[in-house]
């Protein structure tokens, strides 16, 4: 992850030819952020694809009702319990869409732990706006 100027000046004595890409102006904490974020995105993507593929398998096997659209999200637990493909499809898509939200949450905590309150505030605004999309979607 990129760092602020103060941190860069603190680390000005690092080797000029870093063995890790981007290490010249970067510290251990910054490396962790990029590492955790890439793992977080990978986990979300893989989990979503696995759930979607499970749904496809159930649909091909003819388990549950025919896939429908327009059903309320409140029907999701029942659909999952019944092993209906629709439930797996919507859950997989929700996991996928929730992945960027999870990484904003991670950044919120990350900036707070580093005392970067300006960027903590900015991350909080992003979360509020995303939450707004859920509220507006439910009301529309």
């Amino acid at each position, binding site marked *: 992850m990129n760092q602020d100027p103060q941190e860069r000046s603190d680390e000005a004595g690092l080797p000029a030819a870093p063995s890790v*890409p981007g290490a010249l*102006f970067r510290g251990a904490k910054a490396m962790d952020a990029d590492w955790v974020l890439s793992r977080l995105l990978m986990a979300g993507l893989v989990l979503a694809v696995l759930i979607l593929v499970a749904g496809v398998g159930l649909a091909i096997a003819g388990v549950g009702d025919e896939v429908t659209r327009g059903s309320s999200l409140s029907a999701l637990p029942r659909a999952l319990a019944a092993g209906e493909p629709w439930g797996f499809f919507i859950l997989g898509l929700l996991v996928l869409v929730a992945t960027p939200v999870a990484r904003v949450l991670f950044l919120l905590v990350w900036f707070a732990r580093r005392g970067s309150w300006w960027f903590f505030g900015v991350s909080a605004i992003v979360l509020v*706006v995303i939450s707004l999309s859920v509220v507006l979607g439910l009301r529309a």
Partner: protein
Amino acid sequence: MTYVFLFAVVGFVAGIFGSMVGLGGGVFIVPALTLFLGVPIHDAVAASLIAVVATSASGSITYLREGLVNLRLAVSIETALALGAITGGLVGALLDKGTLSAIFGAVMMAVSIYMGLRRKVSPRVSVDGAGLGRLGASYVDRELGHTVGYAVRRLPLGLFVGLVAGNVSGLLGVGGGFLTVPTLRLGMGVPMRAAAATSSFMLGVTACAGALVYLVRGAVDPVVTVPVVLGVTAGALVGSSLAARVKSSVLAVVLAVVLLALAVQMILAAVGVSIR
């Protein structure tokens, strides 16, 4: 069943080409679904938005590992992008099919022109080390063989374009990278590699905000969306491995021509003329 397979093929092809030229794939998915497979444009937009989340995630994994993403800049512009995406999603649901198709056609024309011309724009010279400011950053450029530092200029411009790009994304189901990448690069002084990486990272949140509007409203058709998402994810993986073997400037020009043809067809379809 045939259509489900074709939806997956559309996603796969969009994933390959999108990842090879640095786009989310939405500009290919929406016209292919609506013009050739008869999917209603609102369903195509919803499917495309969720597909963009997948391509953003898969692209960002690599960019993060290479240390190219400017997280502070990304999260700053995401405020405007997410806000724009929600407005776009709500407005898009209210527009009729013809108007939405016509707007999409016009935006596709802009994308095709951007893709055709972008390689001719000279890259900005970056600075090393000091004076990078609050949003500035650095990364190791393997091609140049040294660390590149850059300061970020004109944040208000980035926020304004972010709002517009978010709006276009929510409205049309595209990522909006064709607006954010040139703005970061030419307007804000971010080097190309960092601009593409940061843009790809940001678009996940943009598309997520727009997609949530559709998802919680129950306006997502899984029969269309699931094969597209699975296809685009597989395509993005293949495309990223092919990118190094194909000359991207040639590919960009070819795709620009294809997009222009699709744009014309989309606009003609919007006014009730079919040339198929």
